[in-house]
C-alpha cells in the first residue's frame, strides 16, 4: 500500500553533488547561508542608492544554477520546497513593503505608504528568501538521511569534550528517520481499519475532525511504544553500547570533489564579502545604475 511515497526529499542520482561528502554539503550549506546574508539588502548610510546589492544576488543566482545543474535534480522538486513557504514569503514581503520609511514616497493612503526604497528592499527580501530556500533544499535532495545524520555526528564530535552526547543524538536521529516509513505504513493500516468501521476524517468542523483522529493516534502511539520496546530489546541482545568507541561500517572520506566544492563556495563567499566591503557598489552601478538609479 502507498508504495509510491518517497521518503523525505532525497532524489536518487549519481551526480557530482550527490557524491560529495555529507559533511562537505552541511558545511557549505552554512557557508552559502552566511554569504547570502552578507549581501546588502537595505539602503545603508554609506550608500544611498536603493539598488545597491543586486549584483550579489546575481552572483548567488549563478552559483545556485551551477549547483542545480551539477546536482541533476529536477527543477520541480526544488520549486516544491518553495511552495511550502510561499505564504510566509508573501506575508513578509507585504509587511516589508509598507513599513519602510526611507526614500521617496510614491503612494500613500491614510497611514499606509510605499516608497521607492521599500520596493527595492522588498524585491531583495524576496530574492534572499527564495534563494535561501533553494540553497538549503539542495542538501536533503542530494543526501540520504542516513548519510546526513552520520555527517552531523562527525561534525559535532568536538562537542563530546563538553560532554554533549553526540553519538546518542545521532543514533536517535537515525532511528527516527528509519521509522518514518514504517510508521507511515502503520498509519495507513490503522486508517483503513477505522474507515472500515465507518470512521470519516474529512467531514464536520475542525473540532470534529480533530476528534476523529483519536482512533488513529492512540493505536499509533501504542504500536510505537511496542516497536520502541522491541527495538531496545534487539539492540540490547546485540550488546549495543553507546559509551564504547564504535567503528563505522561506511567510513566516509573526503576527496577531490569536496576540495573543489570548498574552493568554489568559498570563492563565492569571498566575492560577496568583497562586493559588500571593498568594491562598494561599483558592479551594481555598472550593471544597474544606468536604468535603475539616479
Amino acid at each position, binding site marked *: 500500500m502507498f508504495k509510491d511515497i518517497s521518503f523525505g526529499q532525497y532524489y536518487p542520482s549519481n551526480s557530482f553533488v550527490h557524491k560529495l561528502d555529507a559533511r562537505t554539503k552541511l558545511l557549505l550549506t552554512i557557508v552559502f547561508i552566511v554569504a547570502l546574508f552578507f549581501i546588502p539588502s537595505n539602503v545603508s548610510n554609506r550608500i544611498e542608492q536603493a539598488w545597491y546589492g543586486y549584483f550579489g544576488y546575481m552572483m548567488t543566482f549563478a552559483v545556485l544554477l551551477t549547483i542545480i545543474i551539477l546536482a541533476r535534480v529536477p527543477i520541480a522538486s526544488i520549486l516544491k520546497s518553495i511552495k511550502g513557504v510561499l505564504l510566509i514569503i508573501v506575508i513578509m514581503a507585504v509587511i516589508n513593503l509598507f513599513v519602510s520609511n526611507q526614500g521617496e514616497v510614491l503612494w500613500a493612503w491614510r497611514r499606509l505608504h510605499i516608497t521607492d526604497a521599500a520596493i527595492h528592499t522588498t524585491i531583495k527580501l524576496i530574492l534572499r528568501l527564495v534563494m535561501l530556500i533553494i540553497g538549503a533544499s539542495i542538501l536533503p535532495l542530494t543526501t540520504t538521511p542516513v548519510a546526513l545524520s552520520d555527517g552531523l555526528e562527525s561534525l559535532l564530535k568536538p562537542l563530546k569534550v563538553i560532554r554533549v552526547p553526540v553519538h546518542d543524538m545521532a543514533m536517535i536521529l537515525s532511528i527516527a528517520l528509519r521509522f518514518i516509513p514504517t510508521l507511515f505504513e502503520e498509519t495507513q493500516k490503522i486508517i483503513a*481499519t477505522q474507515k472500515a468501521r465507518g470512521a470519516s476524517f474529512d467531514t464536520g468542523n475542525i473540532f470534529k475532525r480533530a476528534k476523529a483522529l483519536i482512533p488513529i493516534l492512540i493505536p499509533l502511539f501504542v504500536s510505537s511504544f511496542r516497536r520502541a520496546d522491541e527495538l531496545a530489546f534487539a539492540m540490547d541482545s546485540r550488546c549495543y553500547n553507546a559509551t564504547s568507541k564504535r567503528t563505522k561500517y561506511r567510513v566516509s572520506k573526503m576527496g577531490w570533489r569536496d576540495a573543489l566544492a570548498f574552493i568554489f563556495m568559498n570563492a563565492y563567499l569571498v566575492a560577496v564579502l568583497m562586493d559588500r566591503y571593498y568594491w562598494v557598489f561599483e558592479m551594481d552601478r555598472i550593471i544597474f545604475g544606468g536604468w535603475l538609479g539616479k
Partner: protein
Amino acid sequence: MSAIEIKNLTYTYSKKTPFEQTALKDVSFVVEEGETFGIIGETGSGKSTLIQHLNGLIRMKDGEGTVLGKDIKDKKNLKQLRFDVGMVFQYPEYQLFADTVEQDVAFGPKNMGLQKVEIDRRVRKAIELVGLNYDRFAQRSPFELSGGEKRRVAIAGVIAMEPKILVLDEPTAGLDPQGREDILALIRKLKEEVCPTIIIVTHNMDEIAKEADHIIALFKGEIVYNGTPLEVFSHEDFKEKTRLEFPTATYIANEIRKQGVDIKQVVTSEELVSELARIKEGKNV
C-alpha cells in the same frame, strides 16, 4: 442472488510513475450467499488489495462489481458498503483505541448513526457473541486484556455493525494452537448465528481446506485456481503455480499414493482418517 460478483477487476498501484506495480489483473469471481469463501495466495499476491475493494477502501477503477446487488463503483453506495461488508484486518487488536471495551465496540455502530438504545443492544450482543462476559469485560480497558481477548474485542467491534458479509484477513495469525482453534470455532459460530456469508483470507491451507466451501488462489495478482477445496488442491501443479503448500492431509495422501496405495483425494484430516480406515478395512476383509 450472489453476495458478491467481481468482473475483470484490474488494479495498478502508483500508475504512471516509475513505481508502477500491477496488484490485480483481470480478476473475476462470484461469492454466493451463505458461502464460506477462501482467498489464498503467497505474500504480495494481491489478497489484501482485493478485499479492500469489497468495502470500497480502494476505489475500483477497471472492472465491474456488485455487493448484495449494489454497484461497488457507485459513490452513493460507499457508506452502506462499509457497513454491509464487515472487515476484520490482520492483527485487528492493533485497532483498539477507546477507554473501555464497550466504547471501542460501539465505535462502528456510532458511526452508523444509530440510536443509543440500539447501539447498547448491539454492543452487548456482539461482546457476548465473541465469547466474552459483558458484565466482566464491558468497562475494562481493552489494553489490559490478553492477546486472544483483544482480538475478540476487535472482532466484536466489527460484528456490532451487523454486517451481511464478514471478511477476515488472516484471522488466526500469531495465535497459539488453542487460540487458533478458538477463533475458528468463533467464526463458525458467527456464520451460524449472525453472518452466513464469510470470506477468509489466509496462508494456512489446513484451516481453509476445512472451513471453506469455495476457494480462489491468487498468484501475482491473477486467479490461478477457482473451485472447491477438493478441486483446487487436486491440481498436481498447485505448489508450483501458487508457491503455497498442500494441506497436510492432502500432502500425506499424495505421499501414500506414491507408495502405490489406492487412496482418494482428501483435504482435511477427518477425510484422511476415514480414508485410511476404509483402506485398512478393505485389507482386513
